[in-house]
Every structure is written in C-alpha cells, then in structure tokens.
C-alpha cells in the first residue's frame, strides 16, 4: 500500500534521512524508535505532507503521496492536537462538520444531531463519554490524547500517524493508552505509524518495529550522514536477544552527539 523509494531528506547541509526504502501493507502497525533527533518526526512529516522529500518518493497505492495534509492521513501529536475552544464532543464532531458545511464548517438542525451522535459513538470507543461536555483544559493529559485519537478516527483515515503521542504521560497510563490504540487498530483495520521514545514499551506493540539510526557516522560532522531503518523486525518474532541488540546499538550512537 505504501512504498518508500530511496527516500532522502535534508535541511540544507543537515542530512536527516538517507536512502530509506521500505514497503508497508494495509493494516500494519509500525512502531518507530530511535534516538532523539534521528529523524522520526521528520519521517512522519513526510508521510503527513507537511515536508517534502529531498530525493526519492513516497507512493500511496502506487501514486505519489499528496504534499499537503488531508483527511486520508490522521495525526496525533504529543501536544496541541485538540482545539481548546471546543468541548470534547465538538472536537470530535469537527471533522464531520467540515465535510457537511462547506463554507463555514458549521451544520445545524438534524444534520448536526446526526453528527453529534456519531461523535458520541467515537467518544464511547475511547472511553470519554462521561467527559463529553467538558473543555480540553479540564481533561488530564491521557484523556486529551484519547480525545485526539477519537477526533482523528471519525474521518476513518487510511493512515493514522502518532508522534510520541503518550510521551508526556505516566508509565501506567501509557500502558492503558497503548492497549487502547492496539484495540482500535484491531477493530477498525487501521494502518498505524507510531513513534515512541521508549524502546522497551514499543517493542511488543503492533506488527512491525522499525529502528531509525545512522549507518555511517562522522564524529566531527554528525550532520553529514542521515538515519535510515537499521532494524525492521516483525513484532511476532521479537525476542529478548534482539531487544538487547537494538538497545546496545542505539546506546552506541547516542553517545556520539547528534546534530541539533
């Protein structure tokens, strides 16, 4: 479904991603890990369409992916994913309202009722029904992220992109959230790319684990070489040994300062 062909991304002289190639099928759940600054967010931005590749291409169903974000790709950021001026329910309904109210993005009457009912359904599936009339600032961090997920899912995107969505949450809550994402992925046949900064947590999640790292390293000029996928493991076959191997290799590259 998605194909990355010899993809390069650099900001001026700073090579972030180099020669990355991969294929991803529909319904896969890919977990991305790597040291901070190695280009995971950049990779998601390329998928999302807020950045364009410097060389190479990304094909979605054989065609180059749109260079502007659209409703086929949902996103959850670590922060600022929900709208502070809308209640929980309105936040979820917004995606449908954009569809039905072409100029002002507002709908009224029975059409609005139907949209709100649909929003309630999605809120139910992320466990936010009791909070649906609250504003985001009245929610905990975990609840805000649940909201952001429901908000993205109402559009039933082909790809769901999650950039360290639970990085700011407590470990216990993070576990619950991982569970939630997994079950939603199972129920709705989503294709998910999720960046996580915690290797041991990401390790058992989803169907496939990608480790981003640099193959070549220039200690004097770390920006000369970019990261690529150094490990691509099906999660079913993951074991203690490969986890240790990845940990070791990441620790090695983390000791060399990464370009800022």
């Amino acid at each position, binding site marked *: 479904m998605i194909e990355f062909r010899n993809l390069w991304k650099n900001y001026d002289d700073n090579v972030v991603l180099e020669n990355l190639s991969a294929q991803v099928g529909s319904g896969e759940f890919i977990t991305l890990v790597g040291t901070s600054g190695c280009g995971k967010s950049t990779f998601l931005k390329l998928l999302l369409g807020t950045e364009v590749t410097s060389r190479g291409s990304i094909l979605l169903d054989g065609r180059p992916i749109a260079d502007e974000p659209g409703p086929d790709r949902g996103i959850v950021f670590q922060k*600022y994913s929900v709208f*502070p001026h809308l209640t929980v329910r309105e936040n979820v309904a*917004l*995606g449908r*309202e*954009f569809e039905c109210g*072409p100029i002002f993005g507002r709908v009224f009457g029975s059409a609005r009722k139907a949209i709100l009912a649909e929003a309630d359904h999605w809120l139910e599936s992320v466990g936010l029904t009791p909070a649906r009339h609250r*504003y985001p600032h009245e929610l905990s961090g975990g609840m805000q992220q649940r909201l952001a997920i429901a908000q993205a899912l109402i559009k039933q995107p082909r790809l769901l992109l999650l950039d360290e969505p639970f990085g700011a949450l407590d470990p216990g809550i993070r576990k619950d959230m991982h569970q939630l994402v997994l079950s939603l992925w199972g129920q709705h046949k989503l294709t998910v790319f999720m960046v996580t900064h915690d290797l041991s947590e990401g390790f058992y999640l989803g169907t496939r684990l990608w480790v981003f790292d640099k193959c070549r390293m220039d200690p004097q000029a770390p920006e000369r070489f970019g990261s690529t996928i150094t490990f691509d493991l099906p999660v079913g076959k993951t074991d203690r040994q490969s986890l240790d191997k990845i940990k070791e290799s990441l620790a090695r590259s983390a000791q060399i300062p990464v370009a800022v």
Partner: protein
Amino acid sequence: MKRLINRQPSSVTRAFLGILPLVLALLVYQWGSTVRKAENPQDKLLPGFVEIHDAMERMALTPSKRTGELLMWEDTKSSLKRLVSGVAIAAAIGLTVGLLTGAIPLFGASLTPVITVISLIPPMALLPILFIVFGIGEVSKVVLIVIGVAPFLIRDLYQRTCELPREQLVKSMTLGANSGQIIFRVLLPQILPRLFASVRLSLGAAWLFLIASEAVASTDGLGYRIFLVRRYMSMDVILPYVAWITLLAFLIDCLLQQGSKRLFPWYHAAK
C-alpha cells in the same frame, strides 16, 4: 516570624492596604487646599471639596441656562459615542486584517510592510489632515481614534494568529478543512479572546486621541469641557471631570474583562 516575602495579607488587610493610598492622597489634598485657602480665600488651584461638590451639582444636576441640558451627561454621552464607535471600528479592522494577514501568507506578505509603516506615523500629526478632509465634525474624531488604535490591533492580532500552534492547522487539514473553514472554525474563535485583551490595552491610547481631538475642535464632550473651563482656571470642574473620565475608563476595562471571561471561559481557565 516569617520572611517578609512570604507574608500574605488577609482579605481585610488587603482591602485596607489598597484603599490606604487613596485616602492618604485625599487627606493630603484636603490639607493643601486648606493651607492655600487660609492664605488666599480666592485661590482656585486647589478647590475644597465643598466647591467641587457645588460645581458638580451645577454640571450634572442643573439644566444649563443656555441649552437646558445637563452638561456633564451630554458631554459623557458625546464622548462615549465617539470613543465606542472609534474603538469598535478599529477592533473590526484589527480583527479582520490581523486574522487574514496572519492566516494567509500571501496577504501577510503584501500588507505587513504597509501596516508597519502606517503604525509608525504619529496619529496626532494627522489630525490637521483629518480636519481638512472630514471637517471638524464627528467623523474626524472617530477617524483619529481608528487611525491611532487600529495599526496596533492589527499587528497584535497578526502576532497572536501566527502564535497559534502550527499543529492545530495541520490537525484541521487532516480533518479535511479548507482554508475558509480553518479561519472560521479554528483561528477566529481562538483570536476573539485575544481581541478583547488587545482592545483593553489600546483603550488608554483611544482616550488620549479622543480628548486631544475634542480639545482642538469640538462643541461638547468631556475633553472639550475641561479645556474650555481651563480658561477660567475652574479646577473645581476639571478635577472631578478627570476623576469621572478615569472611572469611565476603569468601568469599560472591567466590562471588557468580565465579558471576555463570560464569553471565553476556556481561554481564561487554560491560562
């Protein structure tokens, strides 16, 4: 004993401490007035409270001999009308232009330099031009307020629009929104509370331009009145007028603050 920086006043003490300087100022005034009157009973510089009271009764409660109007209320009405229309027009311009330049880079590129230049023109220097173009009626006074305040509002709201997290725009696009929908549903509602805040900040300037233009050419208004009675050294009118203007400014500010809290609870709670 706690450190000084850790000692919090109780609510009663706080109220008392807040009123204290005002009471002291009044006492000092009273004392100064008494001393001067003892020297020269005709002294006009520091009128006593009785004189001020009489002057107010004349201005606010007794119909004018010439026009039959209660002058102070007429002045207040005229001035507020000018101030409110000027500020409202400036706010509408500030909101529209600030939002559009912030939201649409193509607009921003062509308008921001012009707005920067306009905001550098001292508005008072334009007053003669306004009098020539619009005459000395209401329009020129309102326009002065608009010219004086709008550039600040535009630049401030432009800034506020640009400051909204980029993530929100991306998120809206992934929800399928077009540019217009993003402006109406995402940017505008979040900029409105910031408009209230900017307007509150610009009210001081608005009053300045109002009083200045009334002082130069007018036949009524609070500014007109204090500059008129200055010729007779009527401090007994000027001082309470100044206090009244201050009170009005304070009330308008409170009104905007409360209105914003009522309308945008999410904005004030989240800060």
